[in-house]
């Protein structure tokens, strides 16, 4: 039933534009509920160049009024000439012959001009969607490196990319997704690098999306990915134009939408989540030092609590006697078993974290005080938590902030709980087993056909930029697992 309705509606809109202006006006008024719809504007006038009546339609909320006045209305009223395109001074004029396109154009911020005794309408771009200005990146911070971040405007975002990549092969292709609200998704890639299979795979997935509307890139990500239930993300999300450009240069494909202050990068490997662009902006040794720290953080945040549970519960002989005595003494008055203590603290930390994100700005500092005081000192003094657990939970919580990518961050934080439970059940045996299963699961994942741990294994020709990077001058190849058209970054 619903489908039938939809098709009927579509048939109606496929109607071609009438010869008579009044019929067109009537049609448009009906389509857009003129009068009821407050920001839908109509302006009739008499064009000077052909002495005919004309009518303009647009949404006043999403177009630039000045542009319309100076570049469309004024010339139409005053200028003389042969053709419309010689009269209006707007950037581009497109001819439209059916109502569906006309309606779509108005929705995306264009002005539609109907002229008496003319079965073509003219669509002129005067879109001016409101958006933030380019601001400093809030969620992915660098010390050394460009600071600007994407904003909720497609043109601004593309301009941020083109500013860094002056290459005529950089293509910005657009595809419409959504049935009711037709939103544009822009596919950006370097044409003489990109692998056509990956590109057509992405396009096919975009075409296959059958849904009324996709508002932004965050929702699009979930429609595109292969394994929605998987723990491990297969698409990279970033708000940094320089990060996006670096991936473009390596032959990756990027998706942008007008409504999101971020882009999607695909395909990805584990290393795309592990690396930060700053590793490359820093000098060789400094960058690799920060990589080493980050690797340690990966371990600490996912495993330190679990390791502690396993060792303290099952392998306490491993702890040196003095330390063991210290730990036991501090736990002497705690009524709970160790696993319970750890879980309390880990969940408490997640609480602070979640609350910290949602809390209104003026209350911000309070959460720190409440969190630190209640969960740290008071819990210890009340003999609910032993001090060593506070240290462990703080360590694992703090380290999690070193994983900058939000998706990976969540994955690791969920993994932490799986590992804690495994360690609590059978010590190192279960912990090692759980880790191995999850590791092998990650190794089996493919993002758009690219194995997750390539180029480490399976091996490919590449920059060999995995855990540590080489010096920039020694990076000769682009990632081989993408099977690019040009595999070399430099000739020796």
């Amino acid at each position, binding site marked *: 039933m619903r489908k039938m309705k939809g098709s009927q509606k579509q048939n109606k809109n496929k109607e071609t534009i009438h010869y008579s202006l009044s019929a067109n006006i009537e049609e448009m008024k009906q389509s857009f509920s003129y009068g009821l719809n407050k920001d839908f504007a109509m302006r009739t006038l008499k064009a000077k160049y052909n002495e005919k009546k004309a009518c303009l339609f647009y949404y006043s909320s999403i177009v630039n009024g000045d542009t319309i006045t100076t570049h469309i209305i004024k010339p139409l009223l005053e200028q003389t000439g042969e053709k419309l395109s010689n009269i209006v001074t707007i950037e581009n004029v497109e001819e439209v012959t059916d109502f569906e396109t006309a309606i779509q154009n108005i929705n995306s911020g264009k002005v539609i001009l109907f002229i008496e005794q003319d079965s073509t309408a003219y669509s002129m771009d005067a879109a001016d969607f409101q958006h933030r200005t380019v601001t400093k990146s809030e969620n992915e911070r660098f010390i050394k490196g460009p600071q600007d971040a994407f904003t909720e405007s497609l043109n601004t975002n593309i301009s941020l990319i083109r500013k860094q990549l002056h290459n005529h092969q950089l293509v910005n292709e657009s595809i419409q997704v959504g049935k009711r609200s037709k939103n544009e998704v822009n596919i950006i890639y370097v044409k003489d690098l990109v692998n056509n299979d990956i590109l057509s795979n992405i396009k096919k997935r975009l075409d296959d999306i059958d849904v009324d509307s996709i508002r932004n890139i965050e929702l699009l990500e979930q429609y595109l990915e292969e394994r929605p239930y998987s723990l491990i993300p297969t698409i990279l999300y970033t708000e940094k134009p320089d990060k996006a450009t670096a991936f473009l240069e390596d032959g990756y494909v990027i998706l942008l939408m007008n409504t999101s202050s971020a882009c999607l990068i695909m395909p990805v490997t584990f290393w795309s989540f592990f690396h930060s662009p700053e590793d490359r902006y820093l000098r060789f040794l400094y960058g690799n030092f920060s990589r080493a720290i980050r690797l340690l953080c990966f371990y600490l945040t996912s495993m330190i609590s679990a390791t502690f549970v396993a*060792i303290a519960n*099952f*392998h306490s*002989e*491993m*702890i*040196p006697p003095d330390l063991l005595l210290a730990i036991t003494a501090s736990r002497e008055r705690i009524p709970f078993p160790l696993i319970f203590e750890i879980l309390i603290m880990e969940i408490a930390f997640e609480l602070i974290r979640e609350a910290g994100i949602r809390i209104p700005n003026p209350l911000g500092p309070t959460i720190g005080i409440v969190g630190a005081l209640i969960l740290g000192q008071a819990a210890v003094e009340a003999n609910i938590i032993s001090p060593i657990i506070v240290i462990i939970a703080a360590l694992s919580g703090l380290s999690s902030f070193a994983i900058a990518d939000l998706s990976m961050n969540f994955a690791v934080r969920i993994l932490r709980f799986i590992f804690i439970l495994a360690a609590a059940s*059978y*010590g*190192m*045996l*279960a912990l*090692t*087993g*759980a880790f*191995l*299963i999850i*590791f*092998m*699961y990650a*190794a*089996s994942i493919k993002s758009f056909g690219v*194995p997750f*741990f390539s180029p*480490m*294994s*399976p*091996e490919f020709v590449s920059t060999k930029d995995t855990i540590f990077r080489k010096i920039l001058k020694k990076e000769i190849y682009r990632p081989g697992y993408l099977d690019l058209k040009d595999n070399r970054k430099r000739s020796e």
Partner: protein
Amino acid sequence: MQNKGFLRVREIAAMILLLVGVKLSDSTPALLTQKAQNGFWLIPVISFICIFPSFLLMLYLLKKYKDKNLVHLLEAILGKGAGKAVSFIIFLFAFLSMTLDSRNYIEQIKLLYFPESPTNIIFLIFMVVVFLGAKKGFEVIGYSSWIGLPLIKASAFTIIFLVLGDLVLQRIFPIFGSGLPIILKEGVVKASMFAELFYILIAYLATRETAKFNKGSIIAALIAFFEILIFYFIYITVFDYNSVAKIAFPFHDITQFISFGEFFTNIETLFMVFWLFAAFLKFIIFLYITTWIFGVIFEIKDFEPLLLPFGFLVGTIGLLPFNSVINELHFRETLLTIMSPFFIVLPVLLWVIALLKGGLRKK
């Protein structure tokens, strides 16, 4: 099979190293010392000398008969029926050694780290992990082996480094232990300690070019041999033969023996983690290739669903022996003794038949 040809020399080598090399940590030394006494560390040399030419011969035959794996090769040389029969014997050997070995590893885990846990539970956890790992397919096993290998080997080298100060070199004398004839005999009889090399031949076509498989397997076989030799040498020089004969798991005794400075005196759990990785991976590979052999013999294209029943069988049969001593000294020794002549002679036999049939000339 999820084979896209992504496997290279390194992944093949890593898998074989794990499959064969982990042997240095199980109770084989105790088995060998019973008769050879302090010459036992030389037994792998004899065994390797006996079995490596046969292995090379198999690789040569596989190279001559293009595009065939172990079972298909046997069928091509011996005829369909006989080929399948011999392959089934190989499958039985693989299955039994996996079962007995797995019991051996479970006993190690149980005795050393979870003395109060029931064996079945540990077996269950172990086999669940092995099954879930094997389920991911041969390529993923290869990637994981390669990525895990450096850590596993680094921990092994740390052990060697830490134990260096405790070696008493004089303990290797008399160099042939209870006598050269005994060592020679034991070396031949226990040659099947390298039998895993033959099972992995089922994956001969896993790499895109078979030359990569040849290279990887030969390199890995040599490295694994030297590793085993070095560790056996360490056992004999640290413990002397009387202790090795009584210590079931010398590897773990070494890890308990060593300490890292004055403060960290009990660091065996650290090494246990990496040893566990190696053990898990070994049995993941073992389970996968055994099921693979079975699948090819009975022409089951999609054999991966069989991993679960086979994993279960390994667990249940592995629990049957009353205790680890019977398992080790009786069943496993018998099995090794039966397998040795089989794997030494079979390739030669195959080669002769192929030669007579003219299968080697036409290619």
